[in-house]
């Protein structure tokens, strides 16, 4: 059969007589789909299904017998355009974003509880170790915080005392913090080790600051500053770390599936985890910019705000979209 096909001197005219209308109808439908999809009727969609299959069949014949003709290239382009429309999202982009925050992100957040705990554990251990280091020696403070941090401690002040509340401070903080989140995530490409490094560094940094502040007895001022935004901000940093660890896992985890697919699945889930957590970092930045610097608010009130913000995030992620198969 194959030998007969290759020997058969097929005529393009014979095979495609009368097919021009089918091709131009599909061309017209595709143009409508690409420019004004909302104008299509149910009948148009049915027609598209029939026309697309017919053109693909014509293209298969053309490729087999006349692979180099312009006509074949045209049919190929029609098939490629049709293929692009086949799995185009049916819901609006706004609906997809809503679905993501209402359902997809909370479920993913719960499913990745193990790696979140790992990230939190790494950060916590580094923080405790940093506290011990900051409490024990000025050298660590100079190395990990800033050379002039000790001057502030020794004067009984903090560098946060000079900060005034406002939009500019808030924007500076949340853009910086979301940038840190992105770096923590991207560092996961180093088989997760980059993310571990960032978690360790950030934990040590925070710990050394606390240890040094306690040693110089300015810890009350630091707690006052950090009480409102700290719990939420630090927790979201660990979530970003979890996203980076998950991304790295896609590179090393053993699986029966092809590595490319495993990596792609992990990359998608890690990005979704980070994108879902990013708005909470913005909230933490807004709190840090407007509430934390307020001298008129007492520490217990700021602590209440901090606890409430963290509880809001935990409540949303733990209780939203419950009752699914994976829950």
């Amino acid at each position, binding site marked *: 059969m194959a030998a007969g096909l290759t020997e058969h001197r097929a005529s393009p005219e014979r095979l495609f007589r009368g097919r021009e209308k089918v091709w131009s109808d599909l061309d017209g439908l595709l143009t409508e789909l690409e420019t004004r999809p909302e104008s299509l009727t149910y009948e148009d969609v049915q027609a598209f299904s029939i026309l697309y299959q017919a053109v693909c069949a014509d293209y298969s014949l053309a490729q087999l017998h006349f692979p180099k003709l312009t006509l074949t290239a045209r049919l190929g382009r029609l*098939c490629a355009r049709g*293929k*692009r429309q086949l799995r*185009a999202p049916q819901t609006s982009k706004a609906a997809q974003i809503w679905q993501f925050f209402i359902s997809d992100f909370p479920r993913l957040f719960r499913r990745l509880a193990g790696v979140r705990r790992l990230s939190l554990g790494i950060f916590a251990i580094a923080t405790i170790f940093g506290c011990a280091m900051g409490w024990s020696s000025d050298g660590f403070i100079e190395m990990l915080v800033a050379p002039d941090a000790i001057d502030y401690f020794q004067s009984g002040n903090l560098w946060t005392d000079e900060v005034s509340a*406002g939009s500019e401070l808030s924007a500076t903080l949340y853009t910086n913090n979301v940038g840190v989140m992105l770096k923590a*995530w991207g560092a996961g490409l180093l088989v997760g080790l980059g993310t571990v490094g960032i978690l360790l560094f950030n934990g040590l940094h925070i710990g050394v600051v606390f240890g040094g502040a306690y040693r110089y007895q300015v810890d009350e001022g630091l707690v006052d500053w950090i009480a409102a935004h700290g719990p939420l901000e630090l927790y979201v940093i660990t979530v970003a770390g979890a996203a980076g660890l998950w991304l790295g896992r896609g590179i090393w985890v053993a699986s029966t599936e092809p590595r490319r697919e495993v990596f792609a699945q992990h*990359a998608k889930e890690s990005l979704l985890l980070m994108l879902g957590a990013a708005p909470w970092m913005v909230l933490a930045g807004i709190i840090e910019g407007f509430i934390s610097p307020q001298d008129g608010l007492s520490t217990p009130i700021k602590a209440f705000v901090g606890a409430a913000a963290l509880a809001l995030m935990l409540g949303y992620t733990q209780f939203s979209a419950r009752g699914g198969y994976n829950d």
Partner: protein
Amino acid sequence: MSLEQNTFVVRGAQSAPVELTLAGVMSRSAAICIDAACYAVLLFVIGVGGYFLIDSLDTTGIDESTEILIAVLMTSTFLLQWGLLSIMAIAMDGASVGKQVFRLRVVSRDGSEASPFAHILRSFLLPIDLMVGPWIMAFSKDMVRLGDLAAQTVVIYEAPEPTWLLTDLPQGVTADEVALLEAWIEGEAALDEEVSAELAERTCEYFDERHPGYLPEKGQGASYRMSLFADSVRNGL
């Protein structure tokens, strides 16, 4: 998916193999450069516009408004830095300004439209790909960078639609004969006058024998007849 040279094959209806042309490293790099220029221009506009706005607000002494404006500018700059490529790709169905110039498009590996998250993932991994991407592409069969690997996408080249199409064919014409006519229409302008005249003579002789009446104006000069034929096809679409 099978690969031949720089093509990427996906399956259409009834498993029809649809060949897509992969975009090369040079065209993709050039497209990135154009997108970077767009980013720089937008950044400049935001910066200069913001400067004049802040300056005008400062003269009236409205501090809170200045702060809010600075916050808006900082947020806009941040979103521009991390989101410009994603926004362009989502809004332009897998293309960007640079990709449009070179007729490139990002699609899923099965040929369908890439999802918004795929575009976001590709753009977030671009800073890393600027360092390692060319190396990965050089050793990759289907010219993918790290962002493409993660998002399961490929970048294809969309050839422009032909400005003419030879559809009015004589009965019993073979593929080789159609290819001969198409080659003539495509390349007649580049032919030397003597060569063109001789080819026209031979082509007219051949078609008058095999498909009488197909080529126009029998009895006129061969070059004239072939030019007339080519013009009629070009003007047909």
